[in-house]
């Protein structure tokens, strides 16, 4: 009768220990036992592998944020839809009707706005939520070890869920206008990935700075509001005079939005290559800077938070 017990591995404490030993002993022989050395200022040599080991925690924290976000909200998912839709209507009226800014080719203005709105909301919610993610999880940071980068990074998952919902809204609207996206939409995942990288760079910076300087929680909403008007959300970036376009594209969000429009608007919105490359370079630099700064200060988070 001991056989089924051993197979299940939950035959009380003794069975459990037997099993864990059987599992781990060979690994310890071959790969060498897991040794951690803690020392002042010691750079974690296998930082990325360590991060990979914590992938389950990353997923579960992301799942927690998603679950909590849609629990106990009366209209749940509708929130993810209402916000971009209202902004879209207002921007269409102000920029399209009142200011009479040109659209991209034959694109209906609401679709132009919504196609810019999706990446903007992705960017701004990652940046906004990630900045406060460390402060919001201060109790975790003070009580358990895990690579701290998981917290800001997991906010990206929540933003991506919202994006998926918004994409459905956009596709519905496009169907309504009888406007087809074409083959380029297949490249959308690549641009979404680019958007996530472009948002996480500054997000890691602000998240880390927010631990030390709490003023950032006042600065962030302000910065995001400026960003909404400075970036080509309510208008097409082609309205920027040619001489200024490269400089304008140094804002990585410009590259992100242009990329989304190029994918979604089916060739009506040509990609301005020098500007897009510029955006990519700036986004890459910011991502590098964000990760480097975050890694430098994350070891002291528990002491200051």
């Amino acid at each position, binding site marked *: 009768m001991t056989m089924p017990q051993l197979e299940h*591995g*939950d035959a009380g*404490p*003794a069975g*459990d*220990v037997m099993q*864990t030993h059987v599992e*781990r002993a060979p690994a310890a022989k071959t790969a060498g*036992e*897991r*040794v*951690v*050395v*803690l*020392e*002042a*200022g*010691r750079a974690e040599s296998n930082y990325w592998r360590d991060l990979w080991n914590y992938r*389950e*925690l990353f997923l*579960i*924290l992301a799942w*927690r944020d998603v*679950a*909590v976000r849609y*629990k*106990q909200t009366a209209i749940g998912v509708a929130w993810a839809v209402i916000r971009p839709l209202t902004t879209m209507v207002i921007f269409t009226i102000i920029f399209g009707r009142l200011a009479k800014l040109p659209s991209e080719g034959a694109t209906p203005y609401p679709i132009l706005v919504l196609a810019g709105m999706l990446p903007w909301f992705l960017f701004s919610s990652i940046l906004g939520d990630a900045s406060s993610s460390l402060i919001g*999880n201060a*109790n*975790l*940071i*003070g*009580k*358990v*070890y*895990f690579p701290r980068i998981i917290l800001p990074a997991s906010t990206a998952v929540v933003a991506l869920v919202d994006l998926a919902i918004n994409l459905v809204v956009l596709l519905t609207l496009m169907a309504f206008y009888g406007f087809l996206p074409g083959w380029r939409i297949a490249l959308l995942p690549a641009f979404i990935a680019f958007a996530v990288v472009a948002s996480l760079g500054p997000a890691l910076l602000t998240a880390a700075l927010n*631990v*030390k*300087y*709490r*003023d*950032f929680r006042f600065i962030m909403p302000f910065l995001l509001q400026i960003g909404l008007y400075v970036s080509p959300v309510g208008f097409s970036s082609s309205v920027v005079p040619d001489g200024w376009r490269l400089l304008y594209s140094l804002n990585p969000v410009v590259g992100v939005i242009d990329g989304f429009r190029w994918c979604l608007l089916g060739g009506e919105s040509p990609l301005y290559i020098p500007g897009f490359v510029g955006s990519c370079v700036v986004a890459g630099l910011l991502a590098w800077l964000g990760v480097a700064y975050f890694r430098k200060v994350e*070891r*002291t988070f*528990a*002491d*200051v*938070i």
Partner: protein
Amino acid sequence: MIRADGLGKAYMIGHAVERDRYVALRDVLAGAARAAIGRIRDPARGPGVSGGESIEAFWALKDVSFEVRRGEVLGIVGRNGAGKSTLLKVLSRITEPTRGRVEIRGRLASLLEVGTGFHPELTGRENIFLNGAILGMTRAEIRRKFDEIVAFAEVEKFLDTPVKRYSSGMYVRLAFAVAAHLEPEILVVDEVLSVGDAEFQKKCLGKMQDVAGHGRTVLFVSHNLSSVRSLCNRATMLDRGRVAYNGGVEDTLANYLAEMKTTHMACDDLGARPREGHFGERGRILGVKINSDQALAHGLPAEFEISYSVQSPIEGIAFSLGFSTPDGAKVMCIDTDIPGPRFRLRPTKQSKVRVSIDRMHLAPTEYILSAAIRSGDNFLIDYIPDALSVTVMPSAKTPAVIALRTTGHGGVRYPCSTEVNVPASLNDAVRNDQ
């Protein structure tokens, strides 16, 4: 296996800006601007310290070396502020050591608090997975132990209820149940057994003994000496950040008790202790001294001297001292305004107030002394929940039966007078006795 070599951990304490541990960017900018202007005005002065504050290092751990071999269960004892929690934080990688190094072989999980990361909106089932992952279990591992955890916590019926609707007992049971099913090679535990009711505590202790008995390495911090005694096979005593004693459990505990009894009837470093919230901003307790360093004895008068500083004028002030048992039950309070006047305090760097009682009624054993400055009936200016661990000693006035045994006699023995003529049956008993 754990090997620590010359471990040290320093915290920086700024004396002027103590109310918040974090800095506001505005202060840094203002400080930099002030320093720049200062340099223009007075180039000889050199770089000023930002905002005029003085920064000082506080060594929570200093030169700590020890070794824990595989399968050992090491108890760590020491009074509040001895550095136990800091040591556990360093070992669990939450904070980085300032000096020295630690080598850890094997998968380490730490349990500094039960229910870390529990989310009130999520159900019991969801929280088991969340909390398990936070403590370092894999999903497969949690799934495998899920039924066991639920049975241990006795919450089967409420698995799909959000934990915000749980009673505090259920909440704690669930939290501990998840933690108790951790199976790392090295387990670091901080005083988590002091949760729940007595019966559940017994169950937890049993579970811990199970874990310790199965060849796993355990580091266990506790104030509860009897659980250290029953769980550990070796113990280390920390004192002000250093290893004060290291050896067998009984020897270490004897040392710890002796230490608690002989020294530290005073502490003068309370000013530097971190505070919660706004405590200590307007008035601050700097130190407490008992009986001019004489032992505190049961049945005899006692005197407490509180030194304090005042930053801005405060009114309606009273000083309070509270005695709690090591497991947190407050058993005696002294308030200078009950009965007595309240004071108006002007700013001062250091002043003292002396409080005396005519007789110490608390039974001889260990207590934790808390100190507070209060304004009016319930506004706290400063509060230190664990200022000092004190031991009340037996005196010539203590009946032998109490002096010899510390348990089973309650916290306070009150003198009484007895009349023996009221109930008839008792009367008979007395007569029979004669």
